[in-house]
C-alpha cells in the first residue's frame, strides 16, 4: 500500500500546484475537486429521485432505496466513513474501535434531547464535542504505540466502553434497554408538551420525520426533512474532508503513512499530526452518532460493539481507503446491501427464476439463497475479501482501472491521474 500512496502523493502534487492559481480556485477547491464536490451535491440532493428508479408495485420496486430511513443511513454512515478515512486513509493507523466515538456521541446527543430541547442543533454540537474529547483521551494513550498494537489498544478501549455502557453505567446509558426521550423529561428550553403529544426531534419546529410525497405516474418520491438535514451536514463534512486532504496538514498525514522514520529525521514529530487526525476522525464519528440520534431518537449500547467498528473499516476499504469519495460509496453499498439484500426471501427468488424449468428453478434458488436474506453477511464477507485481495484500492481503484481501459487509446498519461484524488 505504501508505494501506492507515494504514487497518489506524486500525482496529487502537480494537481495541487496547478490549483494554487487563484483563477482556477472556487471555494478553495481546485477544478477537479470542485467537479467532484458539485457531483456529490447534485447526487445527494437528487437522491430521492435517483434511488427510486423503479415504479411502485413493479417487481423491481424492492430494489428502491429511496425511503427516508435508508437514505438517512446512507449519508450518516457516509460521514462516519469519511471521518474514519481521515485517520486510516491518510495516516495508515487502523483503528478497530471507532464505533465507541459514534456511541459516545449518540449518548451525548440523546442527553441533550432529554435535558435541553428536542431541537437537533444542540444535540449534534454536543455529540461532536464530547466525542472529540473522548477521542483526545483515547488517542493520546493509543497513539503511543503503532501498527497492530494501536489496533488492539483502540479495540480494547471500544470494548471497554461497550461493556461499561452495557453494565455499570446503566444510570447514564440505559443499559440493555438504551435511551429514548420521554414525555416526563425536563427539556428546560422547550415549552411543556401538549397533552398526548410525544417529543419529536425537530429543527426549529421542522420535524425530522416530516416530509412530503410526490406522485408522478407510478413513481412515488419521498422528500424527508431529516434526510435533507443529514445530507447538508454530510456535504459540509465532505467539503471539510476535501480541504483536509488538500491542505499541508493532509500532506503531513500522508507523510506519516509513507514513512514515519524519514519524517522524524526531518525534525518533525509525527505525533501531534496523528493525534489531530485521530481527534478529527473521532469528531466525525460523534457527528454521525449525533445525527443518528437526531433521526431516530434512540440509543443502545450495541452501537458501540466492536462489530460496528469493523463495519466502518469494511465501508472504508470497500470504497477505497485514502480516496475522497470511496468511503461514501462503501458506506452506501454496505447499507444498501444490509437493507435491500436482506429483504429478499425464497418466494421472491422463485419469482425471479420462474422462467426456468422446475428442476433448474429449485436448483438456482438453492444456489442463490445462502447469499441473500439472512445470509447477506456472507455476501458481504466474500465481496470484502475479494476487494482486499484483488483491489486494495477499493471500488474507486476498480472504477479507475475500468476508466483507464477506455482512455488508453486516446491518452496514455491521462489514465494515470486519479479522478477522485
Amino acid at each position, binding site marked *: *500500500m*505504501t508505494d501506492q500512496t507515494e504514487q497518489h502523493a506524486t500525482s496529487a502534487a502537480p494537481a495541487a500546484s496547478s490549483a494554487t492559481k487563484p483563477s482556477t480556485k472556487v471555494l478553495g477547491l481546485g477544478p477537479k475537486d470542485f467537479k467532484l464536490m458539485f457531483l456529490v451535491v447534485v447526487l445527494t440532493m437528487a437522491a430521492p429521485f435517483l434511488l427510486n428508479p423503479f415504479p411502485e408495485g413493479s417487481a423491481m420496486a424492492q430494489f428502491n432505496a429511496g425511503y427516508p430511513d435508508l437514505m438517512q443511513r446512507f449519508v450518516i454512515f457516509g460521514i462516519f466513513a469519511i471521518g474514519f478515512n481521515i485517520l*486510516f486513509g491518510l495516516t*495508515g493507523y*487502523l483503528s478497530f474501535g471507532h464505533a465507541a466515538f459514534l456511541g459516545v456521541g449518540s449518548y451525548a446527543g440523546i442527553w441533550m434531547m432529554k435535558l435541553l430541547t428536542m431541537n437537533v442543533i444542540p444535540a449534534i454540537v454536543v455529540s461532536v464535542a464530547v466525542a472529540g474529547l473522548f477521542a483526545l483521551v483515547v488517542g493520546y*494513550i493509543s497513539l*503511543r*504505540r*503503532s*501498527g*497492530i*498494537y494501536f*489496533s*488492539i*489498544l483502540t*479495540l*480494547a*478501549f471500544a*470494548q*471497554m466502553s461497550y*461493556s*461499561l455502557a*452495557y*453494565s*455499570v*453505567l446503566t444510570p447514564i446509558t440505559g443499559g440493555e434497554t438504551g435511551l429514548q426521550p420521554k414525555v416526563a423529561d425536563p427539556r428546560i428550553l422547550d415549552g411543556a408538551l401538549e397533552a398526548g403529544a410525544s417529543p419529536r426531534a425537530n429543527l426549529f419546529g421542522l420535524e425530522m420525520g416530516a416530509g412530503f410525497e410526490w406522485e408522478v405516474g407510478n413513481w412515488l418520491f419521498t422528500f424527508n426533512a431529516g434526510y435533507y438535514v443529514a445530507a447538508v451536514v454530510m456535504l459540509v463534512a465532505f467539503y471539510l474532508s476535501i480541504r483536509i486532504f488538500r491542505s499541508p496538514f493532509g500532506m503531513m498525514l500522508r507523510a506519516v503513512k509513507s514513512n*514515519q522514520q524519514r519524517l522524524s529525521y526531518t525534525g518533525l514529530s509525527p505525533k501531534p499530526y496523528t493525534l489531530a487526525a485521530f481527534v478529527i476522525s473521532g469528531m466525525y464519528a460523534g457527528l454521525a452518532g449525533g445525527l443518528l440520534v437526531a433521526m431516530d431518537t434512540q440509543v443502545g449500547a450495541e452501537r458501540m460493539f*466492536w*462489530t460496528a467498528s*469493523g463495519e466502518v*473499516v469494511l465501508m472504508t*476499504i470497500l470504497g477505497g481507503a485514502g480516496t475522497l469519495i470511496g468511503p461514501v460509496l462503501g458506506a452506501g453499498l454496505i447499507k444498501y446491501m444490509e437493507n435491500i439484500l436482506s429483504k429478499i426471501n425464497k418466494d421472491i427468488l422463485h419469482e425471479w427464476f420462474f422462467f426456468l424449468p422446475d428442476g433448474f428453478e429449485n436448483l438456482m434458488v438453492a444456489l442463490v439463497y*445462502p447469499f441473500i436474506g*439472512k*445470509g447477506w*453477511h*456472507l455476501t*458481504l*464477507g*466474500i465481496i*470484502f*475479501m475479494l476487494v*482486499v*485481495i484483488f483491489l*486494495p484500492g477499493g471500488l474507486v481503484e476498480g472504477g479507475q482501472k475500468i476508466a483507464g481501459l477506455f482512455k488508453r487509446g486516446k491518452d496514455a498519461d491521462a489514465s494515470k491521474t486519479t479522478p477522485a484524488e
Partner: protein
Amino acid sequence: MEAIILQILNGLDKGSAYALIAMGLTLIFGTLGVVNFAHGALFMVGAFCAVTLSRILTLSHEVVDPTRTDFLGNPLKIDVPYAYDWFGQATGDAIIDWAVPLSILFAVPVMIIMGVVMERGLIKHFYKRPHADQILVTFGLAIVLQEVIKYFYGANPIPTPAPQAFASSMDMGAALGFEAGQIIYPIWRLVYFVFAAIVIGCVFAFLQFTTFGMVVRAGMADRETVGLLGINIDKRFTIMFGIAAAVAGLAGVMYTPITSPNYHMGMDFLVLSFVVVVVGGMGSLPGAVLAGFLLGVIEAFASLPQVLDVLPGLNQIIIFLVAIVILLTRPRGLMGRKGVMEE
C-alpha cells in the same frame, strides 16, 4: 482461603481457552509474521466439529417396535441410532456419550487440513502486504467462515453435553483437605484445564525436542539465514500454521460442554485472545500462555462479589484495563522479544 482457591479454579478454565488460542495466534505470528483475525473462527469451527460428530453419531433410522404401542394403539416407532446397529446398545451408548472427547480425533485432521489450505490458498499471498491488509483479509475470512457455519447450523447455540462421567461437579475442597462443601467445581472444567496443559506441553515439547521444531525455532529467529542454509522453511511454517489451527480447533472442541457453541463464539474469544497475545508479548509463546492464565485468573478475581461491591462492572473491563496499563508501561508485553513488531 477457600474463596481464593475457588476463584483461581474459576479463572483456570477460561484462562486455558485464552492460552490455547493465544498460543496459536503467537505461533502464526512468530513463524509467518501474519496477524490472523480468523483464529477465533478456527476455534469456532473446532467447536462445530464436535457438534458435527455428535450429530453423525446420533444419526438414526426408524424401527417399529411391535412389543409396545403408542396412545392410539399403533405399533410404536422408535429412532435407533446406527451406532446401536453396529456396536450394540451398550457400546453405542458409550460412543454417543463420549462424542465430545471423540471429536478430538475428528477435529485434528480437519483443522490441520483447513489451516494448511488457508495458508497456501490465501495467507501466502499476503506476506509482502502491510499488516493492515493481513488483518483485513483474515477479518473478511472470519466473517465468511462464521456465516457458512450459521447457514448450516443455524444461529442458536447448540448444547453439546460432556460425557456422563464428567458432567457432574466434584467437591474440590474435600479433595484438597479443606472443609467439605466449600469448593464445588464442575469436573469438566478441570478436565479442560488438564487437557489444555497437555496440549501446551506437547506443542512446547515438539518445538523444543524435535529436529523439526528446532528448524522452526531457528526460522522464527532468522528466517533468511535458515533459508540460505538450503532448508525449505516455508513448508515447515505452513505445517506450523496447520498445527496452530489444530490447537485452536481442539480448544473449541473441548470448550463445547462449557459454553454451547454458536456461530459468533469465536469472535468473542478472539478479541480477548488478541489482548492476551499483546499482554504476553507479540511472538513469545511462553508469554502468551502465561498471560492467558494470568488474565483468566485476574478476570475471575474481579468477578468476586466483594470486589464488585466496591467497583461495579470491574469484571467486564479488567482485562482491557490490564492490557492498557501493560502496553503503556511495558510496550513489548510481559515477555516480548526485542525487534518483533517494532516499527
